[in-house]
């Protein structure tokens, strides 16, 4: 009984919050009115899952009045089962992963003599494209913005979500500026600018924060990340677009700590079937500044295998680190001309 009531309370809260806070966005809105959302709750599905599992287990154990030995052995069993399940799902997902093919990873260096209709790949006919970009700090953000610009193509079926740490006003400004640039490129009723929103999540570890509290703050930002990944974009309601924009298609990060947490959460959500497997593809792009050594985050992504693509921007680096792909200098566009 307990889990259902808690869930319903949560659901009620969620709905009322939705009503008062979230106004429907129009596509023609200017960038200054761009919807920025701070997270204060967690996603309904995840909450129900966690709350239900925890409370039913605890209640069951307490009521049955088992001895401590039984309790411990049960915990261990559950742990082993869960661990095996996670490991199995992890490797199963990696095995089934679509291996990126040769020619499409490297951006074309020479202009191709193509007519207007022969652009490959052509994604204009897809029902929905939903990108999530994680903006870090300073150089990371500058590189990410450049990468987005280098890969941008005006299409009405694209939604972009920017995930930014709370307090990172510089990245927020850059994201807004980028959206303004995109809007300027497609003025008026031209809907090829697509839609966008910005999510603010808690920083994994603030500067000078004591190390022993880091796991807790990481957990909080993980919940925020889960929310940012599973909350549907407001301009793309189920009514108009079905489940097309339910979950992000591609998550792009280039190195900030928050980026790893968001991607890890995305991977876990996929492991527990909370997000379908053919969604939330993770692309990690190693910063252009690294040409011979990999950053710590890069190594983490390589070792854990949670990224679908670990892209590096120097050929020399791709040769040293097996499993990484050379994708060209995507955040230094001027070098390709």
């Amino acid at each position: 009984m307990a889990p259902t009531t808690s869930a319903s309370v949560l659901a009620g809260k969620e709905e009322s919050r939705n009503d008062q806070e979230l106004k429907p966005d129009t596509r023609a809105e200017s960038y200054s009115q761009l919807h920025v959302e701070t997270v204060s709750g967690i996603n309904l599905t995840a909450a129900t899952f966690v709350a239900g599992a925890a409370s039913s287990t605890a209640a069951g154990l307490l009521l049955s009045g088992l001895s401590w030995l039984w309790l411990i052995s049960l915990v261990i069993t559950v742990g082993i089962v869960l661990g095996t399940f996670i490991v199995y799902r992890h490797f199963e997902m990696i095995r089934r992963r679509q291996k990126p093919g040769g020619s499409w990873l490297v951006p074309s260096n020479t202009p191709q003599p193509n007519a207007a209709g022969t652009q490959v790949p052509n994604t204009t006919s897809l029902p929905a494209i939903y990108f999530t970009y994680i903006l870090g700090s300073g150089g990371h953000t500058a590189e990410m913005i450049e990468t987005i610009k280098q890969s941008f193509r005006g299409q009405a079926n694209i939604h972009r979500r920017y995930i930014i740490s709370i307090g990172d006003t510089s990245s927020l400004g850059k994201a807004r500026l980028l959206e303004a640039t995109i809007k300027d490129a497609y003025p008026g009723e031209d809907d090829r600018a697509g839609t966008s929103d910005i999510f603010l999540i808690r920083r994994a570890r603030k500067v000078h924060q004591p190390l022993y509290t880091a796991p807790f703050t990481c957990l909080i930002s993980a919940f925020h990340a889960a929310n940012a990944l599973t909350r549907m974009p407001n301009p793309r309601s189920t009514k108009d677009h079905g489940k097309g924009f339910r979950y992000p298609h591609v998550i792009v990060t280039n190195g900030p700590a928050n980026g790893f947490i968001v991607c890890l959460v995305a991977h876990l959500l996929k492991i527990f079937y909370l997000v379908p497997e053919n969604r939330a593809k993770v692309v990690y792009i190693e910063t252009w500044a690294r040409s011979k050594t990999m950053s710590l985050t890069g190594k983490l992504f390589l070792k854990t295998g949670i990224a679908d693509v670990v892209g590096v921007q120097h050929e020399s680096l791709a040769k040293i680190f097996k499993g990484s792909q050379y994708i060209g200098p995507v955040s230094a566009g001027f070098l390709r001309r």
Partner: protein
Amino acid sequence: MDHLTTTKHTTDTEATHTQKIAGQKRDASAITTVSSQGSSASSGEGLEIRNESKREGEVKRPKLGEEQTSSNRSDNNMALIEETSMEGRQCFVTVGATAGFRPLLSEVITPEFLNCLADNHFDLLKVQCGEDFEWFDEQVKSLPSSPVTIERFAFTENMAKHYIRSRGEMSVRMPGVVVAHAGSGTILEVLRLQVPLVVVPNPTLMDNHQAELAQELESTGDAVYGRLGKLTEAIARSLELVAQGPLKLKDLPPYSPPPFPVPDSERVTLFDWMTLTCYPDELRKQQHLQDLRNVEKSFQRELEQAKVPQTETVQDRRQRDLD
């Protein structure tokens, strides 16, 4: 003139520590020089003011009112600028926003470095000093004299306008140099603006991948690796690179931002392919199209290769006929 300088001070919104009074005093003294010597002023101070007003009028240079200057220009520098009617070289030093970099700041105001700048026809040294602004300010004030103008400020969001001032534009200004810490954001922005760059890695940072980046840039010829203690060498090499390098950083056309959206032929398509992996059927289709394109391209290439000797033989035949 007085009116102009005061509006410059008031319109500027950047939050930097300024010493307006000192700056105004200097301006006032400059004005007296101008008025006493008439319009054809021959002193360095008077010329400097004239030159500045010309810049304001001609190229709409961003205003730099808040920066305090202390100047004593060498006469041959001024003569050079007067001859070519171009803005002189600017050396812009930046340490970025995140961390201080005192060794770099203290090196750029050594007499050796300043003389090097003056010898190479630089007329302006501008320093973005970050958290060490007050310390640097004192250091500059304690300098007995300087052959170039030294301007300084703590930080601004809009760094691009300062970088642009070092960009060598045809009949507008001579190429200067940006001496920067090895932050990737700074480097990318400076290189995008086609400004000569000297990268100085901070040796005190924990892992020295900055040096790695600087070496890489030096080897590709995009920038000069500046080592602390040997910055004069780096300036010389940078000037060499500007004069002879493959980047052609001299006599550039005025800066225009790259086209946005990027043309389809130059676009990065990685994210599109990743999206397609979420739609397996569509991915198969597009990959098939891509394969066809590749086949077509290789066929065309073969055709062109086959054509080359053919056209030659045709030409040969014509030649033979003519003979």
